[in-house]
């Protein structure tokens, strides 16, 4: 409907799937341990889901922070991720968590990683429907959502960095991060854990993480991403602070990780 109001090309006929119960709610797939979130689950329902808060606290934090209270009560997680994912707090969280869309048709279903989202909406075939979001359980994992707001707390961020630190192992690996509101597409900052030397020697961890995040951003730019440049922040400012937020996110997430 928003696209229609904005004058973008849309179809002639619309079918509302908003009230299909199969597309709503949060469940745990006991066979895989993954969280299954119906695509039509509203952000407010997701944010307040006890199950999701245990298994994907990063995602519930992002869902609870996105947009405004009024919008969160209407917007769905599927819609939020698929409509301009580059400007979505939950999208950053979903990428850091390694989440995937479940796309179903009459003949079967396929998984599409959120991090594979193109610049705009995910392409689905005519007979397909995005039915849910599958999120590997992050229970006990470390997480952090860093939102930098430059025009007040009621505004969308100028930059969001989400970080997920895997449980177990005790080592530095398994630090996945993503950034939104940074460029014209989702920026997967990848595994920042590789930047941290196992012996902890050398430059500070924060500086190494910041450098790694900046390098990942620059790789995304070389691959065609274009930094956002708007009233909230210039492109240069966004690039300058992405590492700062990433380092803070890793520090916070590491502190939250279960021993």
């Amino acid at each position: 409907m928003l696209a229609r109001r904005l004058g973008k090309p849309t179809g002639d006929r619309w079918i509302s799937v908003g009230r299909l119960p199969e597309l709503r709610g949060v469940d745990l797939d006991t066979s895989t341990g993954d969280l299954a979130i119906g695509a039509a689950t509203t952000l407010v329902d997701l944010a307040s889901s006890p199950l999701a808060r245990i298994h994907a606290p990063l995602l519930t934090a992002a869902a609870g922070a996105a947009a405004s209270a009024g919008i969160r009560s209407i917007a769905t997680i599927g819609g939020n991720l698929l409509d301009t994912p580059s400007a979505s707090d939950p999208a950053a969280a979903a990428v850091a968590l390694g989440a995937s869309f479940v796309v179903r048709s009459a003949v079967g279903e396929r998984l599409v990683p959120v991090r594979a989202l193109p610049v705009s909406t995910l392409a689905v075939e005519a007979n397909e429907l995005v039915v849910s979001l599958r999120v590997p359980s992050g229970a006990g994992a470390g997480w952090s959502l860093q939102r930098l707001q430059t025009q007040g707390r009621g505004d969308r961020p100028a930059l969001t960095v989400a970080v997920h630190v895997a449980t177990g192992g005790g080592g530095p690996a398994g630090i996945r991060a993503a950034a939104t509101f940074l460029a014209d597409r989702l920026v997967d900052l990848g595994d920042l854990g590789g930047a941290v030397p196992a012996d902890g020697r050398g430059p500070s961890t924060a500086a190494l993480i910041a450098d790694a995040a900046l390098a990942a951003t620059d790789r995304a730019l070389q691959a065609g991403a274009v930094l956002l440049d708007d009233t909230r922040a210039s492109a240069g400012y966004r690039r300058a602070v992405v590492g700062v937020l990433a380092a803070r996110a890793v520090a916070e997430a590491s502190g939250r990780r279960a021993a």
Partner: protein
Amino acid sequence: MTGHSERRWAGLDSSDPMMDALERVTGRTRYAIDVTVPGMAHVVLVRSPVPAGRIRRLETDAASRAAGVLRVVTGEDVEAAGLAGVRFGTMAKDQPILGVEYVSFAGDAIAAVVAETAAQAHAAAALVVPHIERASAVFDPDEALAADAVTVHPGRPDNVLGRWQLANGALASARSEAAFRMRHEFSSPAAQHVSLEPHVCLARWEDGQLETWTTSQNPSRVAEELIRIFNLEAGQVRLHVPSLGGAYGGKNHAKHEPLVAFVARLVGRPVRLANRREDEFVTVTKHPARISIESGVDHGGRFVYRTARLRWSGGAHALSSLAVMRAGGIAVLGPYRIPAAEVESVVAYTNLPPAGSFRGLGVNQAAWAGEQQVDLVAAELGLDPIEFRRRNLVRAGDRLWTGEPAGDARWLDCLERAVADLESATPDRRASRPRPEPGLDHPDRRRGRGVAVVMKHTITPSRSEAVVALRPDGHVEVRTSAVDMGQGSPTVLARIAGRALGIGLDRVHPILPDTAITPFDATSSSSRVTFAVGEAVERAARDLLDRLLEAASVALGVPPDELHRSDGRSIAPDGRQVDDAAVAARIRLPELTGTATFVNEPAEDVETGKPVSSSHWHQGALAVQVAVDRATGVVEIERAHGAAWAGEVVSVPGARLQNEGNVIFGLGQTLWERLEFDADGRPSPVTMLDYRIPSLLDVPAAFTAVALEAEPSGHRERHGLGESLIPAVAPAVGNAVAAAVDVRLVDLPLHPERVRAAIVAADESRNGGATMA
């Protein structure tokens, strides 16, 4: 602190709401956009895409043929009606009804499309093709004032919209005697008022009578303009002002009313114009300003002299520019003892959207400069900035830098209270959101504290009239042309009338402006309603009371001066009583009225014989604590504590809301609001998606804003509180940021990107070019 208290009115406490609060928050308040009349059509403006040029031709055929269009009105229609030479404006007659020959800013109205629906009018307006011979434009006030500048308006070759100068004391000798001399320059950007309700105007003509519903803070003046423009008698214009959804000075000018009335007469139908949000940004803005200020002090840390030079960009029309120029000029040096001073304040025409009055009326820009420089001077002397202010603030009996007596000087009381609340471990948190005060959770966060003290005049002289009428049912109507903008004026005026008459609020009915029945009022701006209209209402209510007691004395057979009043009844010493409805019935008149006029004439300085600038001063101080993130530049206002001089509080919740609103309103302009103009003078951003205003989420974790009152036994002049704190927000925060990270920003807003850039530059400078870690 001495000489004041925070005593609450007996019988009135914070549970007393604003009279219209429930209607406003439940969406039942009727605004101008809600008014419809039979046969109403809609008018949409066609705006100039360029900032300057001659209108050669307008292609209107396609628009005229578009669905629903009744007429496309152009300058030729204005010319044919003999109104091409008409100019209007509150302070300078420089606004045409519609562009006839030339355009003076991008957004200037060059045609008006009238259609059955607003959507049809908008669609057709897009079909009008203007042919404008583009001319050079000027956007910067200093460039506009240069000798070789292009001219914004023919006939005004120097682009000088106004100039105000004042000097006092022996400046030359003071300069030579000063132990320290410092000069700094500051600037402020354009901004927009962003009242939730945009400008709306509806006009209809019936039998040669013009009736208008409009969003104006100035109904009496706008009615006068319409009478003049259309050559009418006073009784031929009736102007209504429903409740406004905010104004903040942006509706203090005649804007669309003459055009809408003209179009309605031309098409023979009632028509309504309702601005879209983007139209608001070219209708009126806040003045961009550039201010240089110089101070000299002695070894004892006292001002020896101060001078300032202010340059304002007025945009293409004057609106309230002359008042802004003067108010900022008076306020820029602050409420300090300054033996010698000189100020020059000049406002220039530029090819930008018109700038008008804006909550704070130029004092925001002035205090941003003046109060930051106070801290810079204190730092140069190695003095604590609060102590420096204590040494220099005027007290009762002192004179202001203008040479006039400071009058009821309470600035020091305001400062001490604000500082005490900031330093208090347990400040009054009633106004605070239940959000814990954030800690310094990472090493990049640095804390700092800052204060600012402000002075602002009120319009002097000005006139307010009031009628207070007892109806046959024993209820009382309070008729004034004070505009209800959400600031609570109906509640305040009703309380004043009710108290004077000895009746409860349930029987007092404030009437919104309707020039057919409400008397003249100068303006609902300058924080003057509580003061000036309130005084008129109190006098009118006492006038009514005299008549009421006379009538009651006849009924009770007791002299009027032996009666006392309680709950709408006049009571004799022996207990016999008569209620107001019975008195009203006895006199057999439609109503019993009391009337009054209040004029705040400028008092004459007994020593100099000169009139004073203001009949009293709005006085306030703000103390804040900020946390600055050095790595991102984000400034968080953790604590804000304000104190404003009220003299006498009429409505406790109203005073609190006004004071808090001052600070919250100022946060956005301090931290992120800024209107930029492109190469064609077009503003950006122009949507509320990108032009953000503060929300309750931005309220500091610890936040108080108190209204200080005089002792009950003393003289208790009521002060308006609409602007006493807002000018203090930006300089207090600027001073706190400087204290936190040792970086002084001289241009607003303190957007994270600008703060970070300043920190990086300072670090590079300190490190000899090395970049920040």
